[in-house]
């Protein structure tokens, strides 16, 4: 695994760094530009959008928070995201463990049915689900996005946990069995603590997915007071099309929490997104 420089040298070194840096600027600039615009005095934005702000003006952020009601949207996002993530993680751990460690009637068909969900887009269930939620009396409540949100997280969650538990050594569980533990206790007290890396990957991945979701709340949560951040931002953009400073402030408020979570937990997140691809 030693990284010898000679055999990998395919590019001229200076040219390489120029390309890498240009790509980094392309990835970052639109986001940074939005943050800068949010802090810029309104008069300056049109004159020269590329310059740094002459003074920092917090009024756009304050206005977006109050009139734009981003404070409310933020709370809604938390109310929706926390139970969804807990539901996906608990159910995926149980199911992933059951599928990887036991042979029982219906195992194959249940696993395959859940895995098929990986390719089915939300559009393919959105219409009947609307009426189902209506009949259940859930439409317009937070549950109308939490419960389907959990179901949609399961295909990936079960897949991830199943492949993790499969790779764990069997001896520890056997030791528990000899000591007379129930299967559930073996799972909870012996195997689950070993699955921490996979669980944290799933938590971060599912958090981002739920936090950014927008079509589901658009269809099932019609009440303005219940909108999560992405939906709030969309309507906010529609209402203040001409006021770039204010829209930029909305973008800043929407992006800072996710980017912070990403920077803190990036290893788990990248692993979650790529684990399907790199196996």
């Amino acid at each position, binding site marked *: 695994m030693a990284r*010898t420089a000679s*055999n*990998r040298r395919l*590019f001229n070194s200076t040219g*390489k760094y120029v390309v*890498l840096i240009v*790509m*980094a600027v392309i*990835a970052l600039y639109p*986001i940074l*530009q939005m943050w800068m615009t949010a802090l810029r005095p309104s008069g300056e934005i049109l004159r020269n*959008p*590329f310059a740094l702000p002459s003074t920092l003006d917090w009024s756009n952020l304050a206005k977006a928070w109050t009139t734009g009601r981003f404070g409310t949207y933020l709370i809604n996002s938390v109310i929706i995201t926390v139970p969804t993530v807990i*539901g996906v993680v608990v159910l*995926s751990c*149980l*199911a992933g463990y*059951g*599928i990887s*460690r036991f042979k*029982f009637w219906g*195992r194959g068909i*249940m*696993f395959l049915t859940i895995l*098929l*969900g990986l*390719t*089915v*887009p939300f*559009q*393919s*269930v959105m*219409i*009947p689900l609307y009426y*189902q939620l209506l009949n259940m009396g859930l439409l317009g409540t937070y549950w109308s996005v939490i*419960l389907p949100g959990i179901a949609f997280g399961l295909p990936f969650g079960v897949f991830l946990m199943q492949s993790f538990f499969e790779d764990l050594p069997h001896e520890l569980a056997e030791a528990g069995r000899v000591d*007379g*533990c129930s*299967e*559930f206790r073996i*799972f909870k007290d012996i195997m689950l603590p070993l699955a921490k890396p996979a669980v944290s990957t799933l938590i971060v991945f599912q958090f*981002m997915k739920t*936090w*950014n*979701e927008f*079509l589901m709340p658009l*269809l099932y949560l019609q009440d303005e007071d219940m909108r999560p*951040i992405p939906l709030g*931002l*969309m309507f906010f953009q529609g209402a203040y099309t001409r006021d*770039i400073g204010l829209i*930029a402030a*909305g*973008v800043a408020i929407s*992006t800072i929490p996710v980017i912070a979570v*990403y920077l803190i937990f990036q290893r788990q997140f*990248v692993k979650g997104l*790529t684990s399907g*691809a*790199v196996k």
Partner: protein
Amino acid sequence: MAHPSPRKMGKRGSKRQRAGFWFVLPAFLFYVAFFAYPFLSTVYLSMTEWNGVGTPTFTGLTNYSRLVQDGAMWSALTNNVIWVVLGTAAPIFIGLIISVMLWTGAKGGGIFRTIYFLPMVLSPVVIGVIWNWIYNPLFGLLNTGLRNVGLGKWAIGWLGETETALYAVMLTAIWTYLGFCIVVLYAGLQKVDSELVDAARIDGASPWQRFKNVIVPQIRPVLTMVIVYTVIGGFNVFDVVWVMTGGGPNNSSEVIATYTYEVAFRNSEYGYGATLSVIMSLVALSAAYAAMKFRKAGEA
């Protein structure tokens, strides 16, 4: 009852195995109630005519024959195909170059990867709002920049012209997931055998030959997975198109998913909308299946 007592050692084996069922059941029931069952309902609705009120009228395969003759559907599907082709080829081409650059050893490689991946964590709505502003014909960054360097005549309304809308949205989407392609390809490159690359160099292979004949074959599984991802993504794309153009102007950036949304929720044709969404699933499923077969064939 779910967890057999260890004292009943007689049939321990089979009883123990059966415990697995109770571990899987909660997830399975949940999945069936809020995913599988509504999906089957969609399949049924796709064979009905229904405006959302009263009972759906069963019409057999009428919707499917309508679909075959629906010009708007075909032009939307054509846009999906363009999206799949360009949206796969471009990020893989750029992604391969960048990931190999990182792999050959670059100072701060981890920081570069963190930055490239960043757009991927943003909501499509946020991305749409940011890029709507970049493309704004009057005060957008792109046109302001073009005017500043004297290319004012190129400053057009990128999202408002039928010729450019689809490509402008696509560029935004590629900006979002290019970092994902780079990171996955880079992970695949970690498994490349450096000694083979070295041997090829000693044998006088040019950098391009080393890349094409030694490196690419070794990362083929990962390459296939990236392609599956971009192909399924290309057929299912909705959010970014819906936020930026809504499929317009004049349906020029319409894709199957936005068309489905319009048919179902704007025109209240829930039956035909269901037909379109069944087709979406079928296309994505067969694309994934084909890619898996292709991958298996490559491994054999």
